[in-house]
């Protein structure tokens, strides 16, 4: 169903580059920003609370007098790091299980598909919340919960594509020539699923960052004083009139990061 409505657009490549540029900009701010302007995301100076930008704090100070620039940079390292770890785990698990299910068929395939379908029926945020309650440590919990949610998409894509490839005459010929499963995977299956994997990985990262921010925003995700995008927004929301820039910084950063990842993923509607 998903790829049946795809219509290639000439603008696709330009959009992808825009997306890559946006993601790169967020990462540059996160990684190089603190090197260019040294500072501590936790250091408080109550005298400067909610005051405007100055050279040591290019985005001003929050309600506790902490530099928003450095908190934002730390937040932009935290969420993408958790998201990418989860996507990597989920991608490997989905890839492995998907290929396995497609190659083995029978009950292996049936049970894994039923499991994936059941997970698909559960809202991702709910699973993440439950795992967060089980696993000690918030970052670890997010990683485990998000991996559990995200592997399904990789599994479904891999399984569908691999089944089609394995049934093709080319694979049959390869097998008759005596090549093993590793060779079949490398020359036939991987080239087919690699582009899909990249798209799914970009979407998965966006989903994960969204989930971390959303739960932070409703006070059930990362705990204060950790700098986290959603948490920063909800902390700064009461001071909107005094310091609009303070609230807008995490909002714009989150939007740019998510938009970049969506564009990078390409024009596939989910």
């Amino acid at each position, binding site marked *: *169903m998903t790829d*049946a*409505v*795809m*219509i290639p657009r000439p*603008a696709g490549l330009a*959009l992808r580059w825009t997306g890559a540029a946006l993601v790169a900009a967020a990462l540059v701010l996160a990684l190089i920003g603190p090197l260019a302007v040294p500072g501590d995301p936790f250091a408080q100076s109550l005298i400067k609370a909610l005051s405007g930008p100055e050279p040591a704090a290019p985005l001003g100070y929050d309600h506790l007098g902490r530099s928003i620039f450095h908190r934002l940079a730390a937040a932009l390292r935290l969420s993408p790091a958790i998201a990418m770890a989860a996507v990597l785990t989920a991608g490997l698990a989905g890839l492995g299980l998907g290929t396995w299910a497609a190659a083995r068929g029978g009950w292996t395939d049936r049970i894994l598909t*039923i*499991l994936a*379908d*059941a*997970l*698909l*029926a*559960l*809202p*991702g*945020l*709910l*699973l993440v*919340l*439950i*795992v*967060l*309650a*089980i*696993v*000690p440590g918030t970052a670890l919990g997010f990683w485990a919960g998000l991996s559990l949610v995200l592997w399904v998409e990789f599994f479904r894509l891999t399984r569908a594509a691999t089944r089609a490839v394995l049934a093709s005459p080319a694979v049959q010929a390869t097998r008759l020539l005596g090549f093993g499963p590793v060779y079949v995977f490398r020359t036939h299956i991987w080239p087919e699923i690699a582009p899909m994997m990249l798209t799914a990985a970009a979407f998965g990262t*966006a989903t994960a960052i*969204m989930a971390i*921010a*959303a739960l932070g*925003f*409703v006070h*059930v995700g990362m705990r204060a004083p950790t700098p986290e995008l*959603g948490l920063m*927004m909800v902390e700064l*929301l009461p001071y*909107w*009139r005094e310091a609009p820039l303070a609230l807008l910084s995490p*909002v714009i950063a*989150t*939007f740019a990061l*998510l*938009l970049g*990842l*969506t*564009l990078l993923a390409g024009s596939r*509607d*989910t």
Partner: protein
Amino acid sequence: MNTLMTRGIQALMVAVLIGAATFAMMRALPGDAAYRIAAGRYGYDNVDTAAADAVRAELGLDGPALPAFLNWLGDLLRLDFGHSLVSGQPVIAEIGHQLGASLSLAAVAVLLSLIMGPPLGILAGLRPGGMLDRVLLVVSTGLKAVPQFLMALILILILSVQLRLLPAAGYGAARHFILPALALALGLAAVNARIARDAMARIGAMPFYSFAQWKGLSPRQTLLRHGLRNVSVPLLTYLGLQFVTLVEGVVVVEAIFGWPGIGHALVHAIFSRDVPMVQGTALCLGLGFVLINAVIDLVTGRIDPRRAA
């Protein structure tokens, strides 16, 4: 019938998964669950060993894991959720209260998104590459990248803090619906519009569509007789899949706007480790997804009989 079987198995697996997850949650709770529950019931100042022991005996918190788990699943499959650990009310009654509020919010949101998204998408799809199509692509891509909580935040800032048009939170009057429903609907509408646009562009380019116009039907008649029905199939299928997004949105948006619904209850239940409530609400949401998709399977089979065969 085959699709219904699949959905039935899916529903059963959903129940088992939620059972396993909540059981693990119960067992893995840090500290003694009995003390925690006793604190939730009687207040933190009134907890002593006697109260905790009473709770432990009442809920059977001791004992080996496997029989307890099977027992747990048995209760779940008989739809016997027990009582909320915090309020002491039966879980079913609590969910009954909250489900109505959530359903009405979700229904208003879906309705709003259907009013906004598909008509624009169909108009854009009738002229692929046109002005409307390009504008819609930009707008919907932008909207899709805004998570629902961020949308809620932006709407609150603009409409209730700056312009003072609408209340930022509350429940009861019709105007309380507008902001939360809009926060959910805009994201859904962005996706709906894209799907309608792609489907319309695909169908508009098919030979049968040109033939309908060639034999003398006006563009309007062609769209009404031959276009809409074909567009509605992918739209409905996606609407079913979007239900998960909607539920996630409901959980977050209810928490932000203080909406007394099932999502709000779920967040609170997880926060206070009220496992029976978590189980009940989670099961309700999961089975809701399966049910809605089963209905959509049947409806799309009716609209497009080729799929049912």
